[in-house]
């Protein structure tokens, strides 16, 4: 069984998943950040592999991606950095990034490598559903990888069911129609959150985009199984570094 499913079986509420950009702030920070996040007690980790032109991302993730690329990160190098990650942690690990680097790496090889390292899930935000169904689904399933798909406040009911049916692991609820790091307030999304809650999807849900502190985290947890934090964590790494205390403090402030 996939670690993501196990985690949702063990724990139904207040899950916390943290996104960070691989190779940022320094090229070889990747593994250290994973270990620290695990020790700080988060439930899942999303490792972003950078792309030069991240369409769905705001300035903070754009800049962390740009810096990571300048530092020399590549998908190939990231897999190298993660080679022995399972000797250190059993936390669910998800790779998140855009399609173009995956295409250049080779789709088949990408998923094979994920399996070899024992990655549990992938999030490829610019992968169309039809493309997934026709080209990638078999590959993903053969390697026992959870393909996690996004829904937004503008996603229609029928499509939400379609996405739920094609998803494994969880459904990623984008909190508002925005790029990452946005400041749209979450209270106006109550209708959307309630709608999804009432739909009783077959997958658990996590809410992401715009979750940045204890208050927004707790609000998201009221409507879903938990929340995802990205931009705020990267901002924190920039200001306070990647040491144990820094990461512990960030997580404690969310969950205190």
């Amino acid at each position, binding site marked *: 069984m996939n670690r993501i499913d196990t985690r949702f079986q063990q724990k139904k509420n207040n899950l916390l998943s943290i996104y960070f950009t691989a190779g940022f702030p320094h090229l070889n920070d990747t593994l250290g950040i994973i270990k620290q996040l695990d020790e700080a007690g988060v439930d899942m980790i999303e490792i972003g592999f*950078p792309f*030069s*032109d991240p369409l769905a991302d705001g300035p903070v993730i754009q800049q962390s991606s740009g810096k990571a*690329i300048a530092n020399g990160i590549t998908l190939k190098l990231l897999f190298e950095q993660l080679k022995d990650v399972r000797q250190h942690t059993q936390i669910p690990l998800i790779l998140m990034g855009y399609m173009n680097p995956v295409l*250049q790496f080779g789709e088949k090889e990408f998923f094979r490598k994920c399996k070899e390292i024992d990655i549990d899930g992938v999030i490829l*935000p*610019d992968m169309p559903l039809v493309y997934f169904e026709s080209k990638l689904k078999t590959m993903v399933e053969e390697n026992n990888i959870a393909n996690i798909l996004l*829904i937004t406040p503008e996603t229609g009911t029928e499509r939400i069911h379609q996405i739920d049916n094609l998803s494994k692991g969880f459904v990623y609820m984008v909190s508002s129609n925005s790029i990452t790091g946005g400041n749209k307030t979450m209270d106006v999304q109550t209708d959307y959150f309630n709608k999804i809650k009432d739909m009783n999807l077959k997958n658990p849900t996590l809410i992401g985009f715009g979750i940045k502190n204890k208050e927004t985290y707790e609000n998201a947890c009221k409507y879903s199984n938990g929340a995802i934090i990205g931009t705020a964590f990267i901002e924190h790494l920039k200001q306070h570094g990647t040491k144990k205390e820094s990461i512990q403090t960030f997580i404690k402030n969310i969950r205190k």
Partner: protein
Amino acid sequence: MNHIKPDKYGYYGEFGGAFVPEMLYPNVKELQEHYEQIIQSDSFQKEFKSLLSDYVGRPTPLFFSKNLSAQFGAQIYLKREDLNHTGAHKINNAIGQVLLAKRLNKKRIIAETGAGQHGVATATVCALMNMDCTIFMGEIDIERQKPNVERMRILGAKVVAATSGSKTLKDATNEAIREWINNPVDTHYIIGSVVGPHPYPDLVAQFQSVISEEIKVQLKEKTGDEHPDYIIACMGGGSNAIGAFYHFIDNGKTKLIAVEAGGEGVNSGKTAATIALGKKGIIHGSKTYLIQTDDGQIIEPHSISAGLDYPGIGPIHAYLHDSGKAEVVNVTDQEALDAGFHLSKIDGIIPALESAHALAYLHKMTLKPSDVVVINLSGRGDKDMLTYQKFM
């Protein structure tokens, strides 16, 4: 003509598609479901054609250049898109898309621009149609195309500097797409070339196809045969090229030549010659050729002409190239500049630096006296005065 229609998912062969995040899906889907029906409707066509003739000044002339013909030993015609209102072919698309946006009840228009021609065209049509207009332009392009920035402001548009990445056209496009994600309901994004997710390449191609529609009629009148031997057009994203090619694709006679920006040379590291260097990948929502690293990071392009300074090409052109239906070549910054100065001196036409790339290719052709060559003069050079001056 079914060779240039994408399939229902927006693919031309293996190229195209709609690789967009879920946040953009409803917008793109709305366009996919309605564009064809709206564009084909009589009321749309009537309004579109009347604006093209009375507001833009179409048809644009097909000018027989005696001087170029004598020099190159062939019959050389210039399709004068530079004489359009606002100075380039870009307005054909801007009018079409603003009319489309109106019919989709959108209140606000956003667009990206490189040379500023698409931005000016969009701002112009928005002024005419009373639409709120925001244009994204790379910080570097704002510097090198100053007059166009001022024009957009006078026309009432807001110009926003794209400061991410290489600060040119690709980044302005990223910023416009991000703005669209943040404002999905009331905003229409007018992409300026045959790039982007389906249905953009098809709808922009349709709006630009008026160029070849006119060439056919004009050539028939002038030579008795509507099909030339060659059509040459410059290619950034490829909208003026597809417009000039559209009605000649697969006609069994006409050779279609798209000229990319070689920059300082295709092996100099400072180039925008996508076909010369590109590999298949995904940029701005569609699968096509693009200039990128082995790891799939997009490489910042270079061209002396801001409108060609783009690391990809439209998926239609990737398809036309791979299937041998069109040929893609390139010329350098210097060759384009020389051709621009030359046309100014011999014919009294100062071409846009983009269009000068198409002219420069004449030097690399072997022509016979009977060959009929049409060069798509996509725009005028007013916006390039600063650059021309530097090299005088």
